[in-house]
């Protein structure tokens, strides 16, 4: 669906590009042997290299190279055999070197593309401009003291992959779907944990507006937006702001802005005025990084099945809708759970039970799929009981609720509570006869042409059987009986 913002002078289109910083999942830092773990005591994971001590030499972590290449392959991107580390120069207290080692003109990964899945079931391809390796900066705390800032360098030197998209997104929904898909890909690959609330995935959002069909407008960059929801809110606000500025005769200045999560607004970061004058130059401490084709091919062989491939397979093999398949592949755990539960079962039915009942119940209890009291094999068994007519869908919900509490197998619960569906026609015939006998007036009305009453009879029979009568058999027998 086209996202249109109505202004006083007409309809506006929003153009969005994203820069996502994803921390490479490693034990140690990009250029030093200090730990890259999150949450340690301040400055306890800092080597003299990360502290910017003179005379220290950076040595690259092999694992970062492997994982950057693997991620590049996951983004269907070109891997560059030669890439170059450069110094990006700026001053800030949490950057003790005075420069960040990054890649500029020659990144390790070039153009690629990924698919994003939208709510209406459509799929859109978003271009990837590049992926490069760079160091993270330290962390400044501004709220500890009225006149001072506190600096922790534990994050300084952590390995980041900066993944830059093409300006291919046109709505907050598309941007959200892009971040979600990117997160799924790095999680499937195991190259980044994707935890946005711990900061191991962060987004810079580039937003501009234009009249449909016009040239690209001037963009603003919103820094460090740390959840999918905030990305969408920031875009909504920023696009509206830009339209208002332009329509009231103003001009958009290219600048860096901050998103205020409490107010849902963006504001200018004046401190970054000089920020775009980085004076990049090749880092004399580091030779160009070369990755041979053999090395790339070896990594390609270790690639797991990615969300998009899985999605296409689910659609093809199970006749699933794009929406259902997208929901299932969104999380690696979810897809694995589904495949295990669906083994030898009605896959579509399993998908329904997983996405509506189980995920719903887990959400309510704020549990993850890993913590689910209902195991994949048990959910599969439940669906099996429905498929072979042991229980009806209605009874299955009751069984499921019990499973979620006790973790018992569905077969055991059905046995214990005597919930087995009655398929014995004799027993059902008896109930049908009773219901008909108890409602002579309704029977007369039905025979007089009030067809709608049929539902009433079915409901009554099911109720009388404690929900255990097989609805199909009830239908058949009732029809026969009422036509007598």
């Amino acid at each position, binding site marked *: 669906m086209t996202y249109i913002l109505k202004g006083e002078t007409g309809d506006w289109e929003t153009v969005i590009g994203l820069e996502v910083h994803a921390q490479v999942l490693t034990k140690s830092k990009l250029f030093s042997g200090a730990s890259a773990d999150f949450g340690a005591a301040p400055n306890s*994971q800092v080597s003299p290299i990360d502290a910017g001590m003179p005379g220290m030499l950076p040595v690259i972590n092999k694992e970062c190279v492997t994982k950057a290449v693997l991620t590049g392959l996951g983004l269907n991107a070109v891997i560059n055999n030669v890439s170059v580390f450069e110094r990006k120069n700026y001053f800030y*207290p949490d950057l003790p070197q005075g420069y960040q080692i990054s890649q500029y003109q020659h990144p390790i990964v070039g153009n690629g593309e990924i698919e994003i899945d939208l709510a209406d079931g459509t799929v859109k391809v978003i271009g990837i401009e590049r992926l490069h390796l760079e160091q993270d900066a330290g962390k400044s705390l501004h709220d500890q003291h009225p006149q001072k*800032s506190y600096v922790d360098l534990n994050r300084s030197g952590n390995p980041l992959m900066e993944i830059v998209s093409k300006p291919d997104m046109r709505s907050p929904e598309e941007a959200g779907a892009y971040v979600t898909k990117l997160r799924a890909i790095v999680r499937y690959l195991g190259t980044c944990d994707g935890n946005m609330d711990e900061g191991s995935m962060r987004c810079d959002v580039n937003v501009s507006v234009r009249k449909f069909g016009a040239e690209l407008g001037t963009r603003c960059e919103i820094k460090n937006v740390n959840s999918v929801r905030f990305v969408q809110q920031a875009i909504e606000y920023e696009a509206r702001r830009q339209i208002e500025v332009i329509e009231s005769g103003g001009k958009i200045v290219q600048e860096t802005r901050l998103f205020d999560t409490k107010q849902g607004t963006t504001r200018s970061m004046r401190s970054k005025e*000089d920020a775009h004058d980085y004076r990049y130059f090749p880092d004399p401490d580091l030779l160009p990084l070369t990755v041979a084709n053999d090395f790339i091919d070896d990594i390609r062989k270790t690639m797991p099945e990615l969300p998009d491939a899985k999605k296409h397979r689910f659609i093809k093999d199970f006749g699933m809708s794009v929406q259902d398949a997208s929901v299932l592949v969104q999380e690696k755990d979810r897809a694995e759970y589904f495949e295990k539960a669906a083994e030898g079962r009605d896959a579509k039915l399993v998908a329904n039970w997983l996405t509506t009942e189980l995920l719903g119940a887990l959400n309510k209890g704020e549990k993850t799929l890993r913590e689910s009291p209902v195991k994949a094999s048990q959910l599969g068994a439940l669906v099996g009981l429905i498929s072979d007519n042991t229980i009806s869908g209605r009874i299955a919900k009751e069984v499921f609720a019990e499973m979620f509490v006790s973790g018992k197998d569905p077969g055991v619960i059905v046995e214990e509570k005597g919930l087995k569906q009655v398929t014995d026609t004799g027993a059902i015939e008896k109930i049908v006869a009773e219901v008909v006998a108890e409602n002579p007036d309704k029977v007369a009305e039905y025979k007089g042409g009030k067809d709608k009453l049929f539902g009433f009879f079915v409901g009554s029979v099911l109720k009388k059987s404690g929900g255990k009568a097989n609805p199909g058999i009830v239908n058949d027998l009732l029809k026969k009986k009422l036509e007598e």
Partner: protein
Amino acid sequence: MSIDKNTVTKIARLARIKVTEDEKEVLTKELSSILTMIAELDKVNTDGVEPLTSVVQMQLFEREDVVTDGAIQEKILINAPEQAAGFFVVPKVVE
């Protein structure tokens, strides 16, 4: 090639180096002459020549992903003019 005083002022600010007006005059001349000399090199035709990154044929050295450093909080903070609770303390940087 020459540069003007405004460029010198800007470079000085970006590098956080304080220079006086007199120094700027001198620096403008000095930097211009350096750049003029470097510009001589631009006359050489380098079409199709790969940039020289090292005078010896060698590859970028890579290390294994193991933790071998860090856990030296005290040493890291020892030169800090001010510290508190394990943090470096600096004048407030306002966003």
